[in-house]
């Protein structure tokens, strides 16, 4: 199951301690060499970054250069964090581009995930039938997802939005 929250100001206060805004530093702190031997990780690194895992954290980039895991894209770092998370963390979904979303959906087929978004993440249409996606408790299809995004985007232009942001703690 994938639960989507649009806007950091809408993350419930009791869940704020669970939020990871910056997955880059979180990744740096908690990554493990064995993560990169996982076939799923190898698959999305190849698909998103065109990066090949040679051995644990030794990678080869799209140009054939040896790189470390610190140099993979922010989207792949976020996917790693979500995939290996065991603490029900809420990650910032806007760190991931559209090419990460099919992998996010596959993760959500195996476990419940919550992310928050602040951009229009264009999920492939079939995502809505592959996994239950929710926003504000509503089961989403393509139209309802687009409505949820547009409604949130409109709410950011309303009076009081910046004050809400101010008080959300994120």
């Amino acid at each position, binding site marked *: 199951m994938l639960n989507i929250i649009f806007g*950091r100001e809408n993350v419930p206060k009791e869940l704020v301690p669970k939020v990871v*805004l*910056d*997955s*880059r*530093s979180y990744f740096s702190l908690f990554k493990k060499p064995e993560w990169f031997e996982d076939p799923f990780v190898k698959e999305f690194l190849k698909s*998103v*970054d*065109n990066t090949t895992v040679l051995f644990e954290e030794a990678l080869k980039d799209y140009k054939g250069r040896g790189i470390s895991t610190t*140099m993979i*894209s*922010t*989207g*792949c770092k976020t996917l790693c964090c979500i995939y290996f998370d065991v603490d029900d963390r809420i990650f*910032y979904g*806007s*760190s*991931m*581009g*559209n*090419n*990460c979303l099919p992998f996010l959906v596959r993760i959500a087929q195996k476990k419940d995930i919550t992310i928050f*978004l*602040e*951009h*229009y993440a*264009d999920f492939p249409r079939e995502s809505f039938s592959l996994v239950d996606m929710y926003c504000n408790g509503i089961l989403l299809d393509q*139209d309802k997802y*687009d*409505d949820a*995004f*547009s*409604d949130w*985007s*409109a709410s*950011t*232009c309303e009076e009081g*939005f*910046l004050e809400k*942001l*101010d008080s*959300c*703690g*994120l």
Partner: protein
Amino acid sequence: MHLHVRRDFLRNSIAVDFKSIYGTASITLHSKFTCISGENSGEGKTEFLTTVRDLLVQGLCTITASNGWDITIVIEAGVLKDVIQKEEPGIIIVDELMSERYNLVKRLSKSNKLVICVNRSYPLKGEYPLIGTYTLVREGDWFTFKDNTKLLPLLSDSFTPDTILTEASANHSENELLSVYFSDIKASGSRDKIEKNLRNTSENILVLADLGNIGRALHILCKRCKENPNIRFYDYQAFEELLFKSDLVQGDDNRYPKSCLDFLSLETYYEKALEDFTRGTPLEYHHGEPLAVVYLDKSNCKKIFDTDIGRPLYKLIQNTETFDCFSYLKSQLGESLTLVSPIAVENCETKEDCDELIQSVSSVIQT
């Protein structure tokens, strides 16, 4: 021929040039925040910044701003706070700005710094001009910035809309003005409601949206344009730009004392410019209020629309004033139109000609 009018630099816009041993890349800053975003991960946004930073250290790259301001690159978390505190104005290039807490983004927005942010989401209210957003593209060992103005298909010469859709609500702003000239204008009610009006469509639709504030709505609108390739956007920053630069108001960016860089979006810039220019005159404009009657007077059509900004609309207005014989015959005769010789159709120049032809065809059919 494409009618897209490229904008010259607004007065006070700043060009930022990256020159390295691998090539050059440039962007222009038109407002407080300029965004480099991209649909996908792995496109090289962070790689570009780390490459530039490493080349700078080696003296193999320069970054210059046309106003001479200093430019600082911030890639790691935790560094931005110190950079904001520096007294001198400058330009900050920040990777993943929205991974910072809002309080820091707020401080940045109030600082004397201009910001180039590399992220997928737009800071604050997400009000950014289309010309203020870029996509980064890898080219060999280097990168170029792709101007996002080409992401939305713009109105061209040969395009005739079946529907005109305004960002504004019914009888407000551009909807109010265009209703004087077009009988069937649809109103969205806000920027974020435009996309819903474009869902599941296939007809030719002309959208009048403030490109100077397209911001967060950009990518969902791009999606709608892929789904219906017959959608076109009007090329202006804001309805207010149309009025400001009309021969009625005769506004001039070069004479307006405020800088576009003091505004978060070009829409708010033109709103303010128009209000300031027309204050105390019969043309007085207030955002959100009914237009002064002088704008709605059809005798001012040429003065309002026959300008660089308004000319495409002027042509559409002129076209609606010409009677379309073929469409009229088709709507009246339907399939029976195939019974009429093409020469007879071509000879119809007025509604009266068409009505005569319709009558004679109807009599033949009855016989």
